[in-house]
């Protein structure tokens, strides 16, 4: 009896704690959401929490910020550019990393561990250091300011982590599966396609979320390699140009953020059921 009581009590405590953390975590987001519906004068004169008390008073809210953002942003083009950048920049590094991880984990070839170590070492190179040399190469090969250029750049930045996580997952698969497959006459490529790929779905899903969010939210890489002209600028660059040089009009950002967040949320919720399984994948080897 007391044991059960203890269990209920400790679970209750745990839940209270988790809910508390979740609310704490959500507070800034809620603040931004409320601010995005408030007029500029109110934003300047009082904090967003002042409306919480009388949240049903409709007069203190306005859609003005959203109207301005939608009309000024060239939103359709910006979204299109963002997708044009993000989708290949997610698929290319993941495809390469998956092949690489399988090869590094299960195929025997010259200097395998050294190659792996060099790749992992690249994780600690800050990407800002690479801007100037890479931009030079892009200039010479006419890739500067083009979408393929930024695909390559993002693929390069994303590869080390993707290879590392996939390697840990793939190398943890039981050896027996591979043995029996090859006894049944499966080729290396066959094993990859029919066994490794389907088994890796959870980790791939989590990597898609990581890479997609990172590329979608990126501002600096796009600004450096693509520039900010409307026909190539992704949504982040357009959003940042809503704000004046002294930081005026920042309340528009709050509305813009909620517009740009939509695709990220869709991706996240769409792949969420794989996410929790996948996030543990690199950490423990089975």
């Amino acid at each position: 009896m007391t044991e059960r009581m203890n269990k209920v009590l400790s679970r209750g405590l745990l839940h209270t704690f988790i809910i508390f953390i979740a609310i704490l975590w959500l507070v800034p987001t809620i603040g931004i959401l409320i601010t995005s519906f408030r007029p500029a004068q109110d934003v300047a004169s009082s904090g967003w929490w002042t409306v919480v008390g009388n949240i049903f008073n409709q007069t203190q809210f306005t859609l003005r910020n959203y109207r301005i953002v939608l009309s000024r942003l060239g939103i359709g083009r910006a979204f299109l550019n963002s997708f044009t950048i993000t989708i290949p920049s997610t698929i290319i590094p993941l495809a390469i990393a998956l092949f690489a991880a399988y090869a590094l984990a299960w195929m025997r070839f010259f200097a395998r561990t050294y190659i792996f170590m060099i790749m992992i070492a690249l994780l600690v190179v800050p990407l800002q250091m690479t801007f100037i040399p890479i931009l030079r190469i892009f200039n010479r090969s006419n890739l500067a300011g083009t979408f393929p250029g930024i695909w390559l750049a993002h693929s390069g930045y994303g590869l080390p982590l993707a290879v590392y996580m996939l390697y840990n997952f793939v190398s943890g698969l039981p050896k027996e599966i591979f043995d029996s497959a090859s006894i049944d006459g499966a080729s290396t490529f066959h094993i990859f396609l029919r066994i490794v790929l389907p088994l890796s779905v959870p980790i791939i899903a989590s990597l898609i979320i990581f890479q997609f969010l990172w590329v979608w939210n990126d501002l600096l890489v796009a600004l450096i390699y693509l520039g900010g002209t409307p026909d190539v600028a992704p949504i982040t660059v357009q959003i940042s140009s809503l704000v004046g040089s002294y930081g005026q009009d920042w309340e528009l950002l709050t509305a813009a953020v909620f517009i740009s967040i939509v695709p990220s949320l869709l991706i996240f919720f769409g792949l969420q059921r794989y996410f929790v399984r996948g996030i543990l994948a690199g950490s423990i080897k089975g």
Partner: protein
Amino acid sequence: MLKKVVFVLILGFLLGGICATSFAQKTVTVLGVWGGEERDAFLKTLEPFEAATGIKVEFTGTRDLPAVLTTRVAAGNPPDISVLPNPGQMQELAKIGVLVEVGKFLDVGKLGKEYAETWINLGSFKGKLYAIFLSADLKSLVWYSPETFADAGYAVPTSWDELIALSDKIANQGKSPWSIGLESGAASGWPGTDWIEDIMLRITSPEVYDKWVNHEIPWTDAVIKRAWQLFGDIVRNEKYVYGGVATALTANFGEAPNLLFTTPPRAYMHKQATFIKSFILRYNPELVPGKDFSFFPFPSIDAKYGTPALGAADMFAMFNDTPEARALMRYLVTAGAQEIWVAQLGKLSANRRVNPNAYPDDLTRKAADILSTAPTFRFDASDLMPAAVGSGSFWTGILDYVGGEDLDSVLRRIEATAVEAYKG
């Protein structure tokens, strides 16, 4: 409207006539810091140019300009034309030879008539012109509300003593004379540097000011110390500043003037540059410039140095020598282009020939008049100093000093970074 049409036509004949077909489908890339309304204003300024020449201007506005520009210059992929963060940066870029000398194709003699010598000198490196100024801000202003001043019986001070007397008077009535806001994100502290610079110009000669900029006198010099003390007399006086030091340090520079327009007013005076007009109007759209809010010149301190003007400006330089970029530079220096630009915002033009009627209101016209007629004009010192000082230790020094640190130790620390920064 008619004026604009005529202007477009003239420009069209001039530029279009000279370089008829060679410009078809050509583009020129421009990098700048402007966003929001400023960006709209700049694009509007470009419209007649694009219409007349057929050159497409691809403008990128980013507040990360220093990082983006440095990277693209180092990688050999600079924009055709770029705004430069400050004259100090221009000198460095000209020194390494990445800038195109604009004096080669612009009529320097004509520019000399339209622009004050200061602007030409600031845009030059070793006697050659490399950069032009589009718009300027006048910093030596104290904003106030004529109405509340009249109601309370306060007179606009014309000297430092009167300014202090007025501050005392307001403080003795149990109210706060000043609203000061030094917060500006990573750039926090810069509004304080404007105070020091304006005070410096009023307690010493422009030559000593220049020496200070070039670090020919140390930061621990008596005159610099006096400037900080005069600033401290106001900002560190809890009775003078609304909310005291704590508010001065944490209030955002753009929101600080709002305290002048609450009922009843929470403060009565605010020192800031011309650009603050757009902030005031944004947060208080019902106010009428000139009637509900206005400014008086930051008053003279030592009578013999008068009331000099302190300012800053946006400068353009050219990195790629293309016919399109040349055409755009030729266009931007004209009074006509600048009239379109200043009409949109509270900015001032550096070009003397800009028609005063182009300014949107009397207040801006008055500021433009002060700027163009001031006997002494100096550029914002912190913009001229090496970044490690001008946008580094000077800013943080302001915060440390206002926060209560001993002045001597603040100045010693700035001096130490200056010794390093001016070496190269």
